[in-house]
């Protein structure tokens, strides 16, 4: 009698590469992710431009603005700029980076669906992915430092609420970056071996 794992392995779904495989399923999921992240990027970009413009207008006394909701209700909206601006910059960079990563992953998975996992381009795609992850991570840490620095210099820490998820050191994120870095090297070596094999007479 076959176990659940054996059934899964013997099913077509468990086939890692080619048509109607796990890769083709993930390729569809990446297309959906691309649409969602594109929308998030557009929202972050519009929010960044809108918020920056709003802060400038408020600072020039063109718009009298008060925070109308949340724990700082009634405060002047300018009191939040030390947090809002760095966070929105991070949000734009993170969503744009995520979009680049999804596009690179789509290229990687299209080679998996074509049954060519060790295509030479895959190493370059994975290298671009870990570099993008590093840029996002450095932006996140920079946003955290800038946010606290600006708040200490220009606002009272009690008057702002710092967003969660921006802690300076997150070992899990760096672990993921190192895993992708090693995978990029594995794929580079794999492509090299494949070329060697093809050029062996």
């Amino acid at each position: 009698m076959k176990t659940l794992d054996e059934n899964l392995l013997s099913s077509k779904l468990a086939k890692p590469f080619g048509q109607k495989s796990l890769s083709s399923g993930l390729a569809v999921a990446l297309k959906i992710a691309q649409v969602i992240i594109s929308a998030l990027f557009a929202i972050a970009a519009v929010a960044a431009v809108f918020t920056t413009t709003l802060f400038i207008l408020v600072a020039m006394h063109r718009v009298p603005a008060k925070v109308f909701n949340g724990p700082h209700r009634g405060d002047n909206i300018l009191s939040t700029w030390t947090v809002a601006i760095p966070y929105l910059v991070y949000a734009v960079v993170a969503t744009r980076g995520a979009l680049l990563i999804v596009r690179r992953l789509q290229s990687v998975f299209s080679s998996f669906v074509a049954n060519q996992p060790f295509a030479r381009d895959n190493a370059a795609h994975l290298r671009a992915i870990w570099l993008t992850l590093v840029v996002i991570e450095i932006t996140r840490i920079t946003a955290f430092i800038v946010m606290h620095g600006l708040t200490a210099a220009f606002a009272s820490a009690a008057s702002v609420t710092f967003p969660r998820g921006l802690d300076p050191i997150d070992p899990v994120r760096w672990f993921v970056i190192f895993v992708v870095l090693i995978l990029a090297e594995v794929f580079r070596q794999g492509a090299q071996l494949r070329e060697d094999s093809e050029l062996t007479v």
Partner: protein
Amino acid sequence: MTIRVSLDKVLADRDMSLTALSERIGVTIANLSILKTGKARAVRFSTLDALCRALECQPGDILSFDAGSVQTDTGDGTE
């Protein structure tokens, strides 16, 4: 590449075409072309054995070492 392949010279000496050699040793013309043009990264002993039998020559007649050539890096420390 510091290893030179003289397959074209050996073939010319024996007045044999690449197609005829391909049929005789069972290696595709594409692979023999890779070997002849010096693009090959490796040669199997079985292929070398078949080549030497068909051309009645020694491996040294087909392959030679040219120390003056620039060595190209293949990324794994070998050539």
